[in-house]
């Protein structure tokens, strides 16, 4: 029936058999389109002072939309703007359609902006209806951020190191939006995986945590059940892959994500929240 909840999670085989794939777009190109659209949502949102939740929600809509439609039929930057427009309404941080377009225009080359056609606003507004139909009014989306903060509160250990670890995990969550992880795993699992990664990289080993019982082998056993190390590693690698792609030769019209760039462009809210972390982290 129409209002039945669709499943919003896909396995890797399904991701490789997306509408774009069926439309003749190779996987690598599709992943680049996904990344570029997500980037535009994040960059446009940051410039408009939108919160990290609004941007993340927009990106999730974007990824979901292209599990039903092909990039050939719906140009990615128009969709990106529309997703941010809708996410603004849902997260109660509404922005005017024309302002979103204006901001995005400044971030795009004329060539890329040409996909918006003669009446960019009409293009985005028309797409809103298609977007709502496609995602079936399933607009409430959870993100890993809240879980990151929740989990961090329970971890014991050196506060400065913990802080550093959480900050790094936060950055990974931001960057994970450019992958299809949100189409694969629940936000809780992504949060665990990226905290695990940040712990490894910042050399913060979690040895004790609040609420530990004899049954718990790892801190995340308290929050998620039966998550295998294989799964965590796979999630970490999907994020790390973002930084190792340097195939710019194939993609002259869209430079790949630079690791440095991605860090500098942390949404201001993300930093604010992470700074405000001190309180949250200390028990």
């Amino acid at each position: 029936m129409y209002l039945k909840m669709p499943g919003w999670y896909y396995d890797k085989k399904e991701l490789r058999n997306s509408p774009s794939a069926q439309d003749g777009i190779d996987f690598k190109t599709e992943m680049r389109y996904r990344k570029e659209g997500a980037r535009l949502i994040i960059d446009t949102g940051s410039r408009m002072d939108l919160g990290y939740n609004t941007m993340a929600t927009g990106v999730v809509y974007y990824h979901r939309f292209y599990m039903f439609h092909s990039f050939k039929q719906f140009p990615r930057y128009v969709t990106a703007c529309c997703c941010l427009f809708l996410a603004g309404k849902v997260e109660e941080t509404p922005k005017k359609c024309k302002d979103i377009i204006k901001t995005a225009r400044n971030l795009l080359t004329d060539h890329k902006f040409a996909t918006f056609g003669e009446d960019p606003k009409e293009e985005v507004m028309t797409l809103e209806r298609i977007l709502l139909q496609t995602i079936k009014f399933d607009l409430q989306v959870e993100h890993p951020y809240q879980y990151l903060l929740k989990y961090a509160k329970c971890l014991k250990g050196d506060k400065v190191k913990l802080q550093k670890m959480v900050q790094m995990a936060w950055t990974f969550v931001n960057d994970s939006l450019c992958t299809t992880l949100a189409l694969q795993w629940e936000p809780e699992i992504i949060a665990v995986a990226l905290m695990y990664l940040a712990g490894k990289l910042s050399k913060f080993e979690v040895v004790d945590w609040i609420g530990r019982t004899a049954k718990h082998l790892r801190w995340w056993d308290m929050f998620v059940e039966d998550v295998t190390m294989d799964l965590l590693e796979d999630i970490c690698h999907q994020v790390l892959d973002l930084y190792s792609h340097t195939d710019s030769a194939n993609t002259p019209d869209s430079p790949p994500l630079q690791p440095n760039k991605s860090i500098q462009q942390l949404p201001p809210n993300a930093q604010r929240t992470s700074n405000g972390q001190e309180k949250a982290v200390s028990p």
Partner: protein
Amino acid sequence: MATLTDGLKEWNNVSGHDRVKRQLSVSSDSKLLDEDIREETKVILRPRKPPRPKSEVLLNQGTDHRRTKRYSAFGGDSPFGKSEAYIKLEQLGEGSYATVYKGFSNLQNQVVALKEIRLQEEEGAPFTAIREASLLKELKHANIVTLHDIVHTRETLTFVFEYVHTDLSQYLERHSGGLDPRNVRLFLFQLLRGLSYCHKRLVLHRDVKPQNLLISEIGELKLADFGLARAKSVPSHTYSHEVVTLWYRPPDVLLGSTEYSTSLDMWGVGCIFVEMITGMAIFPGVRDTYDQLDKIFKVLGTPTEEDWTGVTRLPGYKLHRIGQYKPRRLGLCWPRLHDVVNGEAMASALLQLDPLKRLGAEEAMTHRYFDGLPRKLLELPDEVNVISRSVDYLVLAPIQNAASARCSFMRLVMGERDADSAYTI
């Protein structure tokens, strides 16, 4: 802040490779794993959530893939989501941002309520509508109105709801002088049940008032109009620029507090509880916020820092605009509260000025005021109604409507049917 490049260097050290290798599989990269975990690593199915359903796009593969993009975008062959499926009948009323019509669904062959929202030319679907739809999709409960379908056209967005024949406001008008205490108890219990379900999901209704509580022919109560739910502010005007009533708004919000929590809805519950017993709105403010506060403080007393920490720091707490009153016993203001066992205690627990002291929905369901109801009611699954036609827990059965008498009859059945307990409401 740790930069990612730092991180990557360290990562390289950890993994022992010069560069980060792409798609290292766990099995090939044992350095990532501590030996102890490795031993413990078992491939276990994750029972935390049910197996994932296949996505629709893959199930429908190949069928409507070649059709035009607009066609498939709008639901393809599904009869749902199409305006032809519904016949619009008479207008039922104006909601907070929409017009509600009675309608008929050709799909389900039943009467439905059509909530029609006009789209704004400038900004598309109004965000109240968008929020209402997305929240209602997640709220499936016997005491919350069911959303059947959504029809989205260029000019309008229409929500197709189950049709419920009246609301508590009309019901109170029809049964003036107050309702039978036993029915009050059943309505209150259902209201708390619906709200407790919302509050557990951190959804605040924010506009709890008799008009938004639908009452079915058999006495089911259903929360409706989630257009304002979980909004960050409490609005002063509806979509059609009507002023939102202040009668059910709690004193903390009237005084300008913006720390909304579930206690916001509970004040309205208290007001409605007493209103059902007495038949009259208890705080019918006529002018503005301060008139509304005056009505409240005349009964409950003007709050001070001693009985409500932080009240004097609220932006609206202005001594020259607030009258000084001593609290009165609720039973003296509304003597009919004494006709009900523990009625005054319940009213008083809900109508607490300090939001932190106000009773929560879930706690309220186990208040001694409900002692006469079967305990089993607390264990009912979400989708099961308290009121039912079958001999279950409680039956509110409509007996033949006599030509003139519009009233329904309720029969309360606890454990066994007892014809003598039938009474009029």
